């Protein structure tokens, strides 16, 4: 009844090409943005920022990156954790070498450095594909983690082998460090996610994104119609690593504040982000957000439910949580293998006809 596009005429190419062509969608997104920008910062506290909002935003950014590579370009990667580590260590080195540098610039540069590393590890994708490539990207994961563990230069020879974020101030607001206000951290990450979410959406629906999708669907056919696999594949690796590097940088500097490479950027991180992408929906930008929200919220809800609700011991609850995670992933894949984005699509289709579906 309310969700119907009848009467909305498109009179210019611009309106026809809009990201949200239906007015109701547009207003819905505006409303969410307004809440995210004008309401949440006033109510956010340390717990909400560190347990829910920062992980959500940072994982959503990383998932967008992986989605570009896996969802749009079809190159399965298990090296996400390693690339996040590159972003984090690049940020750390830039922070300590040039303490006066603009923090936004540092993050963008870290993304750029990660993009270059990503291209390097993307080169095998020109020869191999499918699961062979997935295993090959594990080489990146293990090698990078080992590198940051072994070479002291990367962590400035600190005794603990940890890296910790220095104090960064922008426009009079402190962004990193333990004294930073949760609202500032939140808004900083939100800004990045919104800007780069918009960019991702626009890359994906433009010429470059279409080239990626052609490669994904069948690379030989794509090559025949004139898409250069070299450009498309390495481009996807570069853009994807750029996003993942930025998210690694925010993950280390803004959220955690200090990180140890094996713990923070291990292979479980790679799998977590792959889960987010698949559960959210491969090849959709929206799915990255929905998947991230699900994977951040579900463990918290499960834990609260089991420890507080059923008063199970915390140690047992941890095992049960892992088990339930596995079960839910399987159930979800069975029920909707195309992820939340598809569910959202179906809901919208249904809403269109509601309440008179016949």
């Amino acid at each position, binding site marked *: 009844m309310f969700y119907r596009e009848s009467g909305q005429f498109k009179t210019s190419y611009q309106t026809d090409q809009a990201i949200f062509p239906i007015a109701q969608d547009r207003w819905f997104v505006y409303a969410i943005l307004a809440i995210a920008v004008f309401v949440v910062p006033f109510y956010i506290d340390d717990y909400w920022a560190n347990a829910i909002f920062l992980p959500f935003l940072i994982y959503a950014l990383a998932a967008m990156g992986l989605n570009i590579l896996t969802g749009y370009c079809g190159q399965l990667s298990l090296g996400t954790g390693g690339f996040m580590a590159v972003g984090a260590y690049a940020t750390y080195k830039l922070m300590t070498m040039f303490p006066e540098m603009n923090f936004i610039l540092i993050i963008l540069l870290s993304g750029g450095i990660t993009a270059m590393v990503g291209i390097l590890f993307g080169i095998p994708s020109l020869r191999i*594909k499918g699961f062979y490539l997935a295993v*090959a990207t594990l080489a990146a994961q293990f090698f990078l983690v*080992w590198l940051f563990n072994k070479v002291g230069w990367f962590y400035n020879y600190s005794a603990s082998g940890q890296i910790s974020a220095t104090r960064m101030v922008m426009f009079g607001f402190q962004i990193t460090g333990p004294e930073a206000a949760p609202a500032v951290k939140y808004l900083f990450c939100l800004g990045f996610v919104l800007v780069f979410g918009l960019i991702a959406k626009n890359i994906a629906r433009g010429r470059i994104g279409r080239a990626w999708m052609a490669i994904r669907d069948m690379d030989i056919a794509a090559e025949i119609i004139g898409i250069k696999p070299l450009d498309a594949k390495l481009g996807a690796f570069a853009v994807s690593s750029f996003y993942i590097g930025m998210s690694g940088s925010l993950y280390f500097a803004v959220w955690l504040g200090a990180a140890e490479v094996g713990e923070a950027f291990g292979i479980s991180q790679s799998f977590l982000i792959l889960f987010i992408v698949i559960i959210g929906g491969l090849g959709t930008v929206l799915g990255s957000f929905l998947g991230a929200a699900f994977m951040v919220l579900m463990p918290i809800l499960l834990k609260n439910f089991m420890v507080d609700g059923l008063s199970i011991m915390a140690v047992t609850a941890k095992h*049960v949580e892992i*088990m339930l995670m596995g079960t839910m992933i399987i159930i979800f*894949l069975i029920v909707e*293998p195309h992820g939340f984005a598809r569910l959202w699509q179906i809901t919208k289709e249904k809403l269109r006809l509601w309440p008179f579906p016949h």
Partner: protein
Amino acid sequence: MLFLAETVISGLMAGVMYALVALGFVLIFKASGIFNFAQGVMCLFAALALFDFISPGGFMDRWFGFYLPIWLGVIATMGVMIILAWMIERFVLRFLVNQDAIILFMATIGLAYFLEGAGDIMFGSDVKPLDIGIPQGAVDFLLDDYGLYIEKLEIVAAVTATVLVIVLAIFFQKTRVGRALRAVADDHQAALSVGISLHSIWVVVWSVAGIVALVAGIMWGSKSGVQFSLSLIALKALPVLILGGFTSVPGAIIGGLIIGVGEKLAEVYVGPFVGGAIENWFAYVLALVFLVFRPQGLFGEKIIERV
């Protein structure tokens, strides 16, 4: 020279251990095209179950007041793995027929999480020394006469792997079920059309993979105790897989040997120059370099693509 020989031999033996894990991967990938990430956790699960069957204070002891002799324990664990295979087919794979390979891969990761949590809850997460009577220590006469240090356990593993491969080869080539398995591996639809039940074939394949996982679990469990890190040997088996080719049983063995020797040699001769602990990634890089020249692995089927 002696040191080199010792390094190579211990590398070969380590390679056999990797190959045992890789074998389970290959079996499942061949028959169903599923990249089974849960293979490592299946090894852990099988070893845990076996340990609980045969040791005092375990599951059998607590519930029935006695525990099984080793041979019966092994058979009982095989039963557990077969039931597990049936459950996986019935509750997971059946619903995921015809999905993308990546979805199935994700489902096996979910399965890995599930088995990991279930194993911890059911059997506890402490390190368990698994001893089923495999001799430990060095082979005496080699050590005395030639100064070569070779673990008895590794020789047992090598012999077991050889026997396992021969048995599997006979099973695949000579039996009715084996022929059906190869038919399914060749072409799902064609196999269905001649009356082969995909469901039962999958149960068989996952059972065989489960039993191979049990063997690998016993070997690794005897070597370093049954513990959580056992499930991580799956990550060690992956480079073996891409080196040997996903679809080749001999590939898994030879890939395992190459990786084992390469890793040991690199650790001894290259490791000290770059700060050590390179065994985590060296195998991957070795496999990666190899793949650039031969994308389908050593023995993988030639990839033919048509538009």
